[in-house]
């Protein structure tokens, strides 16, 4: 188990380094001049020169890269060009909001999908199964920005039940949570349904039945525990999609989160902030998947006890 943990940790660090390098490369190595990108095409040569110096662009690319990595490790991504404050401060303001949103969406998805997936798997082609299968197809087909817009129109503009923008009251969380959770629910439900169906055909389920256990006991814990193992991995991976989806959803609802900060900073060419946003989101994602991998090892003794 220790070897497994160490291996996962090393991998996580490596991935973060890779992400940082990729971000650096994307912003610095594209043919365009970052200073020009930031200052805009109408800037004077003097302005550009000052900016280059300020950004350290006059130094060699290796030095720039070293400084960038060093800064990234200490959470120093430079100042925002627009607001003249450290990029990390801006992120610190909005990160908790996104975290709250993501956790709520995740929780909602888990709470909905486990019973739905279970019910669907109990009677294949039954009523619940058909509803779940069709429903999940629909939710996956709906672009989340579009649902967001429609929900806003219906519940805040027409019915005036819920506030539309910002984050002034807990009520502001309701619509974004639903929009973020929807695709997640459909993926998870199908995953649980198919996982359970597969597990129910395994030999140990026959054994459990042959022992005369009630069907309830056959499912809890025998089937569920085994079906949950791949689901845990998917939850981790889907969390990334969820964080990505936050950029769109937060924009639709004008929600003060890291996704919207990223979009705004890109629109304002505030690359220091944009870099920081991407790296922070990637770090969160890597961290969550690290936890997921360790949970996986805990759930499956074959992984934990492998020599």
């Amino acid at each position, binding site marked *: 188990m220790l070897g497994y943990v160490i*291996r996962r940790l090393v991998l996580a660090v490596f991935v973060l380094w890779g992400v940082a390098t990729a971000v650096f490369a994307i912003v610095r190595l594209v043919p365009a001049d970052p200073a020009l990108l930031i200052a805009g095409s109408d800037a004077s040569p003097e302005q550009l020169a000052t900016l280059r110096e300020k950004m350290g662009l006059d130094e060699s690319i290796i030095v720039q890269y070293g400084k960038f990595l060093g800064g990234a490790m200490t959470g120093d991504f430079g100042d925002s060009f627009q607001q003249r404050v450290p990029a990390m401060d801006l992120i610190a303001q909005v990160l908790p909001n996104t975290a709250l949103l993501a956790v709520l969406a995740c929780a909602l998805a888990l709470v909905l999908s486990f019973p739905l997936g279970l019910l669907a798997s109990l009677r294949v082609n039954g009523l619940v199964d058909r509803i779940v299968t069709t429903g999940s197809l629909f939710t996956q087909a709906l672009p989340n920005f579009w649902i967001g817009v429609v929900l806003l129109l219906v519940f805040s503009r027409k019915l005036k039940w819920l506030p539309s923008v910002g984050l002034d009251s807990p009520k502001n969380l309701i619509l974004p949570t639903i929009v973020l959770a929807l695709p997640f629910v459909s993926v998870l439900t199908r995953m649980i349904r198919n996982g359970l169906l597969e597990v129910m055909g395994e030999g140990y389920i026959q054994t459990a039945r042959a022992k005369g256990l009630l069907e309830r006991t056959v499912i809890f814990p025998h089937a569920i525990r085994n079906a949950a193992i791949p689901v845990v991995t998917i939850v981790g991976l889907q969390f990334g999609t969820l964080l990505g989806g936050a950029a769109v959803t937060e924009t639709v609802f004008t929600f003060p989160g890291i996704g919207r900060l990223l979009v705004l900073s890109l629109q304002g060419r505030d690359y220091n902030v944009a870099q920081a946003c991407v790296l922070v989101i990637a770090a969160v994602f890597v961290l969550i998947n690290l936890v997921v991998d360790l949970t996986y090892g805990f759930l499956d003794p074959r992984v934990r006890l492998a020599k």
Partner: protein
Amino acid sequence: MPEAKSAPLLRVAHLKVAYPIRSSLLQRQISANVAVSDVTFDINPGETVGLVGESGSGKSTVARAVIGLVKPDDGVIEFEGRNITGYSRKQFKSVRREMQMVFQDPYASLNPRLTVRDLIAEGWRVHRDIVPRDRWTAEAKKLMDRVGLNPDYSDRYPHQFSGGQRQRIGIARALALRPKVIICDEPVSALDVSVQAQVLNLLDDLQEELGLAYLFISHDLSVIEHLCDRVLVLHHGHVVEQGNAREIFERPRHEYTKALLAAVPVVRPWLDQADEGRHPTGEPAA
């Protein structure tokens, strides 16, 4: 029966194969799991040598090493006097024409996306000079007929055949290269008893007709006893006993061989109680 004077077709001396154990952290090799060590035997033209052992005895590893699917760590493999141990993949290609293999699982060993004709012709695609392309269909049909399959079914896919028929396809594929020796890795253990006998008879007929040599691997002692001239008994990667098949089955010397023979269920145990000579397969020669 082999001619005793001629040079061996295949000579294996002190064969050792180990599978690396890698550290989970850096995937560096930290030690090795010795699958077989110090295995030595010859196969003469037209002869059948049996490798018998339980799971984990390394008998399949020997087969895979001989045909070049795994690299031996030590020892020498000679084919018709040529040392093929260190052959590169390209060099090995010429050996593969002479040496073919029939696999255990008639379901997994045939590419499900190829027709029987294409399965048999696959070897001709690799070795261009055996059969010209325009003769493939005709030759494939001939081979199907030879192994007891209806040549009209040459356009069918493996899943349309039963287990025994698929094993016949596998044999036809091996024969297509016109080899001198065929390595049979548990060729009948996935088959039902009644069908197993058909395949064993087919192998027997082909040997007689084409002068093939077999390296026959099985866990089933009665099959080995039926078919083999000489036998090697493998246990945990070591040869515990080898020699003339009849002798080993009638007078096993090693404790493991004795235990193995004693463990085989006897079809008609009641005959044994009357008769003194206990045979693994029941039915003493009465």
